[in-house]
């Protein structure tokens, strides 16, 4: 039984490496913290594996563990996480609906300003935004967080509006 658990664990990690890494990279103030978070997520996947009954998609389950771990109370550095975004334009587009913004052409400045503003968000808002940046649908985010889809849409819309207002001011 232990061998089959080990095989299943390895398979899940292999198939979901990018997802786990995706969440970790948003929460890295430094590479050591990211490594610690990555390891802790793996530990919690192992601990929760026996309880997984397939009532949600594996990806949803993995994201839940990743977010729950990030929000957990171990007192690690990533509790005060700094959100890091990559340079892919899609990230910016997802958050800014950039057709309406004057600063659309200054992508580099926008990214820096956006990162600064993202780090001002509360830990919950950061968690929601990290899932948006992963390209998840509202339905999927609602499943992970445990809220209704309309509730999640309202929250994310509010965060986006706040970010836009802050960027316009800046």
């Amino acid at each position, binding site marked *: 039984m232990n061998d089959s658990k080990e095989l299943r664990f390895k398979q899940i990690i292999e198939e979901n490496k990018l997802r786990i890494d995706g969440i970790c990279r948003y929460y890295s103030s430094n590479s050591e913290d990211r490594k610690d978070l*990555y*390891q802790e997520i793996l530990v919690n996947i192992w601990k929760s594996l026996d309880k997984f009954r397939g009532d949600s998609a594996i990806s949803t389950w993995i994201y839940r563990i990743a977010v729950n771990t990030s929000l957990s109370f171990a007192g690690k550095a990533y509790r005060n996480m700094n959100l890091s975004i990559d*340079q892919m334009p899609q990230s910016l587009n997802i958050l800014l609906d950039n057709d309406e913004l004057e600063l659309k052409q200054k992508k580099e400045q926008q990214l820096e300003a956006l990162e600064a503003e993202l780090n001002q968000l509360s830990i919950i808002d950061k968690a929601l935004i990290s899932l948006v940046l992963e390209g998840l649908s509202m339905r999927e985010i609602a499943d992970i967080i*445990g809220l209704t889809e309309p509730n999640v849409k309202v929250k994310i819309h509010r965060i986006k509006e706040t970010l836009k207002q802050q960027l316009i001011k800046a």
Partner: protein
Amino acid sequence: MTTTINTPNLDLNQLIEGLRREDDRNQHLTNRFKWIMWVFAPLYFIFFLIMLYEGESILKELGFFFFSVSFLFFALIFRNLNNEYKTVDYGIPVTEMLRKAAQRYEIWQTKTAKAMFPAFFAAIGVALACQDMIPNIDDTTARIIVAFVVYSLMLGIGFGVGYLIWRKRQKPLRDHALRLLEELEK
């Protein structure tokens, strides 16, 4: 601005080995404690029967009977508590996890109240079985009361220490969970 997207270099096999060791260690620890309780309960009951057979004082007999009942209750309560703490599930929705975490770190819960019963039975057991150790008091009833009060005071001190530990370690976790939950649900 650049960010690197590299999977941290982690030896999965080493991690799994470490996890297995921890699982085994936790299993052994909890089994050991569980078996201590399950051994002491019948053991004290046997002592009670021996005393009954040998015609010891009724107070001592009752004392050992209450010890036996107390250990039995502790064994049952601990078994349920142990299962709960062993199976924290991180794969549930975030709001549910936060709610369960807040519940888990409450100071006063139904299971805390349940633990008062075996503690109370143990206090009675000590008062009855050990009352003859109280010096300078001739009246048996008074010795029982003194033994009960002394033991209860010691229990009270234990609860006080437990409260301080909860306040320092677990209350912040509970408060943090409730804050996050409030923010999510507002």
